[in-house]
């Protein structure tokens, strides 16, 4: 640890949609994460502070919040990498309704994954042989690139298109749809490509890449969305020729 000052000035959002920042002084520790800081405040200063976490090791996706204005997973974010002038400002994720303090209502985020047909639709039952998908097949490689999403909402919170167009499905839902489009076992892709098209879907993405820049799992939703744009447009043009409107 660099020899910074012995304490951190931490501003934490308190309240719901309406509220304000409350200041705390938190002792610095070696290898301290932002989640450690929030936990210290709740245990030592303010038991009423609400926040979410579960695994603490970057698997569950529940501890995301804005740190100095940027959405991050806090359990794997070291204070030393994000602190500015010994100060941290912590706020709930943007683009989602605030429940209380650092907790947001994730309903709409998960509902949009459903709207994008983010559920696997196969044909085999548990009594049939498991489908064989070769790990090095091109489709599997494409799916692999996006499959490690933990649903933390960092991309959704970072997306400007979600901010100015609330109905937009968002990077996580579209990335989920893309991994299923690339899943050769799935049989519902015509409906999925329709579900992700149009004003609320992939074609509204501006390819600004904030989701890709911020994703803690280093996924590129931007690339998946570009793939969806191409396939959905081809499918729509095929629909023209077949007259299947």
């Amino acid at each position, binding site marked *: 640890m660099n020899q910074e000052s012995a304490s951190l000035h931490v501003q934490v959002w308190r309240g719901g949609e309406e509220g304000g920042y409350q200041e705390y002084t938190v002792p610095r520790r070696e290898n301290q994460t932002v989640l450690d800081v929030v936990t210290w405040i709740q245990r030592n200063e303010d038991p009423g502070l609400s926040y979410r976490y579960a695994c603490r090791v970057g698997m569950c996706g529940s501890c995301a919040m804005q740190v100095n204005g940027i959405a991050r997973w806090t359990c794997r974010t070291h204070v030393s990498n994000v602190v500015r002038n010994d100060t941290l400002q912590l706020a709930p994720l943007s683009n989602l309704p605030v429940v209380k303090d650092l907790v947001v209502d994730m309903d709409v985020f998960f509902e949009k994954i459903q709207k994008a047909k983010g559920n696997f639709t196969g044909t085999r039952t548990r009594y049939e042989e498991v489908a064989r998908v070769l790990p090095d097949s091109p489709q599997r490689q494409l799916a692999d690139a996006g499959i490690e999403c933990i649903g933390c909402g960092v991309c959704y919170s970072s997306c400007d298109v979600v901010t*100015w*167009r609330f109905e937009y499905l968002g990077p996580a839902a579209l990335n989920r749809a893309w991994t299923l489009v690339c899943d050769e076992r799935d049989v519902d892709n015509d*409906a999925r*490509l*329709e*579900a992700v*098209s*149009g*004003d609320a*879907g992939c*074609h*509204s993405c501006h390819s600004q890449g904030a989701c890709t820049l911020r994703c803690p799992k280093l996924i590129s939703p931007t690339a998946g969305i570009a793939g969806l*744009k191409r396939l*959905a*447009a*081809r*499918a*729509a*043009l095929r*629909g*023209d020729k077949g007259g299947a*409107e």
Partner: protein
Amino acid sequence: MMAADRRQARQGARRWYWQRLSGALMLIFILVHLIVILLAASRGFTAADVLARTQASVVWAGFYGLFVVLACSHAAIGLRNVLVESGCAARLAAPLSNVIGLVLLLMGWRAVWAVTFGVGA
């Protein structure tokens, strides 16, 4: 998904496709247009030179006529997107951008007609 939603989704996907295609094709047209201008300008650039090249030339009329179609369709789709993202209802943005696209098309074709078949003022 309702039938109307499905139709809108497909229309959105097609709009995206045609805007990309028109944009890509316009690159070729813009390149030809710029090269011709550069060559023409290097020999002295007058209105008489331009008209001498374009008048009664079906090839140039076809070239710029198609260029105008590409530019207008590209602009109309883009304008609709800008309007919708600015908060305009889609059912209002679509006819509005179509009308503006059509006006641009007629103005562009009128200009092409003038330099091809028009008589001097």
